[in-house]
């Protein structure tokens, strides 16, 4: 290292040579230009991203990707909108499914239909539907979060609780748990968990936003959602579930003590729980989410994200190629699985079957089989509106208020609907309130 300049020069020379060699037959069509390799800026959070990007960079010397962690889902989306207006957004970014419509109307995500032709066969219809709007495709799905029940098997066995298959059984189990151990609760009803509630409501058959032609219909307090709200209200009223925020120091302490026995949430729950209750790893297991009607098997999504190309991208074709690779290549899927993410692509999900179960439940041999089955059963038609951010913030406050003041949970849904409709009307959308 005594001649740093010369070293740097030779490294650059090697890089150029490599770029020149590979630019001929590379699959990234819009690869190297006369100015040398292109660099794509990529915003993504989570532990799985860097290994995936590294794998891409190693295989694609002429399209190098530089990853920036711009915060989790909410923060990253907020920054994407601001950066797009300032005209310095990254070329590619991770966006959660339920935020994607908001990113489209904010002018962040660009239509990549022409670059991803025929890609739909790589995904289950329910997953592909999350990135397709009005006939146009705005992203490539990367990971999926179908809802499941992650539960503390050891405590279930101790208290003699059977794994519930319907929500009715779930309520009975909640009663039994609390009777057997007054400190223990079967689960938490966190009023700020908009995504969780949305999943339960979707499973019950509600459709909060729907599009007909150019017009939106908004209906948060339909029969199904109200039934879900009443169900949880009853459990909270009878003190059978804990009505507190998740992942607070308080909650984590109770979880570690074995006083919180389950979490009905996206498949990623195993990773989150492992992060806060590592010592209880091995006590846990995953089962399909309880059903509203016995014999049904459908579940909703909670979380999951897609790779989108932004309107600021200078090389949209190369960016779309990167998005496609991140969503469908085996290398990318392997890196995801290793970090505990559930791949969105069918091939990636097949790959999980050869993998070890997550660290939280190392002994559950059939974990990935159950996961694959659940994913097959996700509801294919879920549409998110253009202002999920407004819905989410309105829901959080209205539901927290209902829990704190003991007012009907269903009123929180009506309140959320009012705010969502008001926002959409203000923005100039054609919207009908049901």
């Amino acid at each position, binding site marked *: 290292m005594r001649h740093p300049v010369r070293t740097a020069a030779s490294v650059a020379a090697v890089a150029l040579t490599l770029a020149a060699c590979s630019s001929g037959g590379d699959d990234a069509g819009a690869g190297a230009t006369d100015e040398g390799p292109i660099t794509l800026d990529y915003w993504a959070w989570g532990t799985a991203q860097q290994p995936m990007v590294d794998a891409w960079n190693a295989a694609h010397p002429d399209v190098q990707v530089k990853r920036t962690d711009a915060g989790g889902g909410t923060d990253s989306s907020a920054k994407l909108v601001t950066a797009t207006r300032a005209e310095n957004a990254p070329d590619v970014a991770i966006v959660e499914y339920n935020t994607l419509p908001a990113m489209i109307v904010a002018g962040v995500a660009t239509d990549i239909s022409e670059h991803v032709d025929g890609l739909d066969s790589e995904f289950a219809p329910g997953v592909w539907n999350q990135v397709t709007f009005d006939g146009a495709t705005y992203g490539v799905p990367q990971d999926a979060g179908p809802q499941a029940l992650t539960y503390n098997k050891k405590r279930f066995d101790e208290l003699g609780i059977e794994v519930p298959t319907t929500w009715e059984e779930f309520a009975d189990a909640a009663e039994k748990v609390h009777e057997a151990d007054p400190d223990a609760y079967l689960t938490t009803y966190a009023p700020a968990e908009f995504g969780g509630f949305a999943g339960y409501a979707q499973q019950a058959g509600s459709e909060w936003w729907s599009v007909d032609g150019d017009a939106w219909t908004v209906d948060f307090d339909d029969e199904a959602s109200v039934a879900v709200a009443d169900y949880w209200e009853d459990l909270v009223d009878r003190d059978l579930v804990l009505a507190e925020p998740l992942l*607070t120091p308080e909650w984590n302490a*109770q979880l570690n003590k074995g006083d919180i026995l389950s979490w009905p949430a996206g498949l990623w729950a195993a990773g989150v729980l492992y992060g806060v209750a590592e010592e209880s790893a091995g006590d846990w297991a995953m089962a399909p989410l309880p059903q509203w009607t016995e014999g049904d098997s459908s579940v909703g999504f909670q979380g999951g994200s897609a790779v989108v190309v932004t309107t600021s991208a200078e090389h949209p074709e190369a960016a779309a190629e990167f998005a496609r690779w991140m969503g469908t290549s085996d290398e990318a899927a392997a890196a995801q699985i290793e970090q505990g993410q559930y791949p969105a692509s069918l091939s990636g999900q097949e790959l999980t079957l050869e993998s070890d179960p997550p660290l939280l439940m190392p002994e559950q041999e059939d974990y990935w089989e159950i996961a694959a089955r659940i994913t097959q059963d996700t509801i294919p038609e879920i549409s998110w509106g253009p202002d999920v951010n407004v819905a989410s*913030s309105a829901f959080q406050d209205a539901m927290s208020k209902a829990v704190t003041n003991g007012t009907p949970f269903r009123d929180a849904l009506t309140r959320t609907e009012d705010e969502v409709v008001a926002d959409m009307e203000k923005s*100039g959308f054609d919207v009908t309130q049901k």
Partner: protein
Amino acid sequence: MATALDTRPARRTRRRWVAPWLFLLPAALLFVTFLAIPVCYALYLSFRGMRVSGGGPFGVRSETWVGLDNYATAFTDPEFLAGFGRLAIYGIIAVPLTLGLALTFALLLDLPRVAGARFSRTAIFVPYAVPGVVATLLWGFLYLPSTSPGSWVAARLGIGAPDVLHGAMLYPSVANIAIWSGVGFNMIILYTSLRGIPAEVYEAARLDGANEWDIAYRVKIPLVGPALVLTGLFALIGTLQVYGEPTTLRPMTSAISQTWVPLMTIYRDAFTRDDLSLAAAASVALALGTLVVSVVLLRVTQKRSFGEVS
């Protein structure tokens, strides 16, 4: 000859004009760049709004002129207005207690022959050096039953610990953090002001037969009046700008909404709901309100504290 005499003062005058402007330039540049321009931009933004232009269910929104729409929305938003009500309850607890404790500590430290003055002064001041978010997390852990030593002791004694993050206890709990952090800073200002009072004043008071109580009440407090007004003004402005403590506590309790205080509503509108224009309008309103309240407070107290006749 005559011309030479005429030009010299003119040149001197010009030089006299140039020098102050040169000295002012750096501050003026910073002021314009980081205050005036952003304020004007916020004003401009407050009259704009994002509206769908293309049509269709996924029409892209773009910025247009919306007049006073944002101000109307802000002033008719019951949650934004309720935030001021919550702010008032918080302020009624936090401001008098912070100033009262600061004044008490300052007077105690200023007593002649007080033991351990230097240590006490530092100990009272140290919480101010703890960043607000850290202080809030620290108190948050003390408030949550599973991590609080208070609840542990209460459980051992067989009594239930109160839930300090819900119901009526929430306000004192949030205010407590601000008081804990703020007393030291205000105490230092008042103490410094006390040290500036000439010793002859006390001598005269003692010759007239005043004890330490009388001196504190009749001499010291009136003489630190201007410092009290200043700290009061800071406390008031600080109250209107409460944001960090409730925001940091929010994940720990369902009782704090995203619109708990006005600044939290502004943050939510700007960054969670992507409505920068509404946030700008609310910010302008809040800033003007703060200005009016500050001017009124200074006007009311000016005559008494500074002995000025306006």
